[in-house]
């Protein structure tokens, strides 16, 4: 199964974490260097833990850059994070215990992020709580910084958890859709192979039937001398063979009984019934039904097409029949091969489809060997090896599902049980796939920008706490601000909030422009300077200067999610340089302030970097969705065409069954004499009917199928009808079509025994028809007004069709002319070769429509 979007997202997350790890290792080394003289030189044993942490970070950075870390590494990371937090009082200087700018917090935070990315939500929550506690508890006396850092850690963990969950959901949906569509595509391949085989088979069948009837009409059963009984025996044997072939083909077309009633209720009832049956046979089956009330893949429906109230679309009865038949096969498979005596059935109903899932914990098999490839899907073969039997069942399940436009997926591994999924989705409107991947990517990016906007609003709101709580605690370094000291903090918060609101309002609708980005970046630098002006000395990198240490990360977020990396990186560098210049100028060589400065810059930079890395994942997800949508749409088109072809085949076979098989049965059973003259005429008539049907020219399966009744009646009177049709008869307006059938039927009714040629041409702006037969008097009925030459317009009362009737040179001629509907707008043309099956296709071009003779008024 392709999991490209999920893979891309996982790669981005783990690589992002790897970058953070590498930088954390650098930070840890820098931290140790800064505190070397104060702590680590005098107490070298304190180096052990930061050394391990730096090495661990480097190891994780290298390992995670290549692939997702194993579960054991994640657990080890959490354990190390907890131990680092618990031992913090002994491994960092007192002044740095519980501080935000400490390698301890980084180690704990990165372990938490790792847990959020790698573990399930509940385990990640437990890990975060443990890590938070391990960080808080030993440093509880070092308030308020430990509270700030712990809150920061939990905030980052929760935010990351939300973001990854959302991104994962989108990626998972994209991948599962793509995988399911790929499954359908495989099923479609089988269906095409089957259709090809069926088509060849049926062509042969019809050809055989037609040749047999034609041969019999010519006297093919008439004996020559002593070979009387031998000839008849051969004819009878041939008839029996044809009967078996037609009946076999008819059986193959039957997909199940079409019981009336609500198919959904029927499906539930059938599933319950089958489960009961299986239980009676010794298999314990549990059944679960889920109705989601939602479409399976929301992306499949364009917003304009999506109804405000989602209602379930009915499952067609033939799909219910196939689903239950395939379920029966799957349950039999469990009974025979799994070695288990229990199975679980889960029925999931989406508004636009259904899935039946059958799970067992049996011995399983190598499912990759039994995929629905077209070669293995060709029916036939008498295999008895257990695996071959399973292969047969696999074929049967795949084949049945493909017949109704569904698909099956079988997941199994030796020793690990088997899961069979039977899926059916209703074909959707043709406008589903977005124009291209760019549109969808933009849609995802908009969603991501809005998520960033929400984070900015939440973050800026939280900044109100230090803005209020620490107002006036650090005297301004600019004397002019001193009289307004407590209010400055609040004013700065209002400015930050205003800038953030402006940015969020823009990114809610669209990305920031270059100018807007520059304004945001410039304003942020100014706010950093203002923050420095509002605080004094080393407070410039303390929480008192929240404007400089926390706000820039939020204020620059709209730029990061809007602009290319060079542009957002420019703003980040500007802020970093400003803070570095201001910080180094104020804190000098004081270790605590230095590490806080470095820590602040680290946190600020990596946050922007991490967020910017999400974009490739979004792009890949968008591409997956687009691929799925396109494939899905193509499959739907093919499926619709295949359904039409199937109906056509069924009609043709039904007609053979009705009109020809009784004749052949009578011969086979010795009840009819195939040499009898009247029987031979009957065979000739049936042969002509089969020929008309095969040519798509008037049989039940062809255009103007209604005409066949009149043709049958005429043939019964000794009229030999030749029907020639070209063009698209769907373009005849309904009333004209009815009228045409009436006129032609009436003409046939009045035609004397003998040859009648009906020619119908449809194309361009109008259609025309001719009926000609040997006669010396004009056609009767409504055409009686016609006289001998020249042709005369006859008032038939028809509003849609003009009719001319005449008798010329011993030939009665009825000429008809009718308007056509304008052609439909061009539809997407699927490449599915099953389309070529439709006998009515490809007959529309170049139908001659010129008339050289004026119609008499």
């Amino acid at each position, binding site marked *: 199964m392709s999991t490209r979007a999920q893979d891309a997202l996982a790669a981005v997350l783990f690589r992002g974490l790897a970058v953070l790890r590498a930088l954390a290792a650098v930070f840890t080394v820098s931290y140790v260097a800064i505190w070397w003289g104060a702590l680590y030189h005098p107490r070298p044993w304190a180096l052990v833990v930061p050394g391990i942490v730096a090495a661990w970070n480097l190891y994780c950075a290298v390992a995670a850059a290549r692939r997702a870390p194993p579960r054991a590494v994640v657990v080890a990371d959490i354990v190390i994070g907890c131990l680092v937090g618990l031992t913090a009082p002994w491994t960092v200087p007192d002044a740095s215990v519980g501080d935000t700018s400490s390698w301890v917090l980084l180690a704990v935070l990165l372990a938490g992020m790792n847990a959020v990315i790698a573990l399930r939500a509940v385990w990640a929550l437990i890990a975060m709580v443990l890590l938070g506690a391990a960080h808080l508890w030993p440093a509880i006396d070092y308030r308020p910084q430990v509270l700030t850092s712990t809150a920061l850690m939990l905030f980052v963990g929760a935010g990351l958890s939300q973001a990854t969950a959302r991104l994962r959901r989108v990626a998972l949906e994209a991948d599962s859709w793509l995988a399911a569509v790929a499954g359908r595509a495989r099923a479609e391949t089988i269906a095409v192979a089957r259709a090809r085989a069926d088509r060849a088979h049926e062509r042969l069948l019809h050809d055989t039937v037609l040749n047999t009837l034609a*041969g019999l009409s010519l006297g093919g059963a008439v004996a020559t001398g002593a070979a009387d009984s031998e000839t008849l025996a051969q004819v009878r044997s041939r008839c029996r063979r044809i009967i078996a072939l037609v009946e076999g083909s008819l059986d193959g077309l039957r997909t199940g009984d079409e019981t009336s009633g609500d198919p959904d209720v029927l499906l539930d009832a059938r599933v319950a019934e089958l489960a009961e049956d299986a239980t009676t046979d010794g298999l314990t089956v549990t059944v679960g039904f889920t109705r989601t009330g939602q479409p399976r893949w929301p992306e499949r429906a364009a917003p304009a097409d999506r109804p405000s109230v989602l209602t379930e679309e009915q499952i067609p009865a033939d799909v219910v029949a196939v689903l239950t038949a395939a379920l029966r096969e799957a349950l039999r498979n469990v009974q025979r091969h799994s070695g288990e005596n229990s199975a679980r059935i889960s029925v999931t109903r989406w508004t636009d489809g259904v899935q039946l899932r059958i799970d067992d914990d049996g011995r399983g098999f190598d499912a990759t060997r039994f995929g629905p490839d077209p070669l293995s899907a060709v029916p036939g073969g008498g295999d008895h090896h257990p695996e071959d039997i399973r292969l047969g069942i696999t074929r049967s399940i795949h084949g049945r599902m493909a017949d109704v436009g569904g698909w099956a997926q079988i997941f199994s591994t030796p020793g690990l049980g088997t899961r069979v999924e039977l899926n059916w989705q209703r074909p959707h409107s043709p406008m589903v796939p977005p124009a291209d991947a760019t549109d969808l990517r933009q849609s995802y990016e908009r969603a991501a920008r809005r998520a960033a906007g929400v984070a900015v609003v939440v973050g800026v709101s939280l900044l109100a706490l230090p803005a209020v709580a620490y107002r006036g605690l650090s005297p301004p370094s600019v004397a002019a601000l001193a009289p307004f000291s407590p209010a400055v903090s609040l004013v700065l918060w209002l400015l930050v909030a205003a800038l953030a609101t402006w940015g969020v309002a823009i990114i809610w609708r669209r990305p920031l422009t270059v100018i807007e980005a520059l304004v945001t970046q410039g304003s942020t630098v100014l706010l950093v300077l203002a923050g420095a002006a509002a605080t004094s000395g080393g407070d410039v990198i303390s929480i008192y200067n929240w404007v400089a240490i926390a706000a820039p990360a939020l204020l620059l977020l709209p730029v990061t999610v809007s602009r290319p990396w060079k542009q957002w990186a420019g703003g980040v560098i500007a802020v970093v340089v400003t803070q570095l210049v201001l910080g180094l100028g104020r804190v000098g060589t004081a270790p605590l302030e230095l590490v806080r400065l470095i820590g602040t810059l680290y946190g600020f930079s990596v946050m922007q970097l991490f967020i910017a890395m999400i974009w490739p994942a979004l792009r890949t997800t968008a591409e997956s969705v687009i691929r799925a949508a396109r494939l899905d749409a193509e499959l739907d088109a093919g499926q619709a065409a295949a359904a039409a072809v199937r109906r056509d085949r069924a009609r043709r076979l039904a007609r053979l069954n009705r009109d020809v098989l009784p004749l052949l049965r009578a011969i086979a059973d010795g009840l009819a004499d195939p040499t009898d003259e009247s029987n031979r005429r009957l065979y000739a008539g049936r042969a002509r009917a089969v020929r008309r049907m095969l040519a798509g020219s008037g049989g039940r399966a062809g255009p103007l199928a209604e005409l066949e009744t009149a043709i049958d009646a005429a043939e019964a009177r000794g009229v030999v009808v030749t029907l020639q049709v070209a063009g698209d008869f769907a373009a005849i307006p309904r009333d004209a079509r009815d009228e045409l059938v009436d006129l032609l039927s009436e003409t046939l009714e009045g035609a004397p025994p003998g040859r009648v040629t009906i020619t119908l041409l449809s194309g361009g702006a109008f259609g025309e028809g001719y009926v000609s037969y040997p006669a010396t008097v004009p056609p009767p009925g409504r055409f009686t007004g016609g006289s001998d030459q020249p042709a005369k317009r006859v008032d038939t009362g028809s509003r849609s069709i003009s009719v001319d009737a005449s008798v010329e040179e011993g030939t009665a001629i009825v000429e008809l002319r009718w308007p056509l509907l304008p052609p439909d707008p061009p539809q997407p043309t699927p490449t599915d070769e099953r389309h070529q099956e439709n006998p009515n296709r490809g007959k529309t071009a170049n139908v001659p429509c*010129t008339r050289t003779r004026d119609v008499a008024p």
Partner: protein
Amino acid sequence: MTEAVIRVGVIDDHPIVLHGLEKALHEQENLMITVTATDLGNFFDGQEALPDVVLLDLDLGDGSRPADNIRRLMEAGVSVLVFSAAAHPATVRAAIRAGAAGYITKTDALEDLMSAIRSARSGSGWVSPALAFIMLTDDAPSRPQLSTQEREVLRLYSTGLPVKVVAKRMDLSPETAKEYIARVRRKYRDAGRDARSKIDLRLRAVEDGIIPE
């Protein structure tokens, strides 16, 4: 003067059809079935005197291509009449291009079959209304170019109108109308010959190394 007996061969893979034709044609005057076969191999085996006209089923079920079969028979000096149950129009056109003298379906009346055989024997070719219709509705890009007159004659004739009526409606003599119909058939045959010549030329050029394979 007594009309010469036409020697007819039938190649069809359906025994009932072969048997039926034998019976049906046996009763006709001046006509003699000299050979029946289920494929071309059987047909040529041990044949010293080939028939004048061969009724050839288009799909012999042996994988052979109808056009190849027609050419092979024509090279042997036999006039070929395509005799098919329900051939696809494109296959019929290909057969005419390959040089078949006419096309008749197995469900057509016996008198039509006789007319077709006689026309094929005389070398004038047999264009039934059904064949006219198939040529008229040809939408292949490689179809022969027909004049307006030829197309109109073909259209009226394909609807089952007698040649006389067609001629009268177009203010032509019946002979001219017939000539138009025959000309269309010749255009198909010529188009097939041109195509074959082009293929031959290409093969020769490939053999000579003038153009790459």
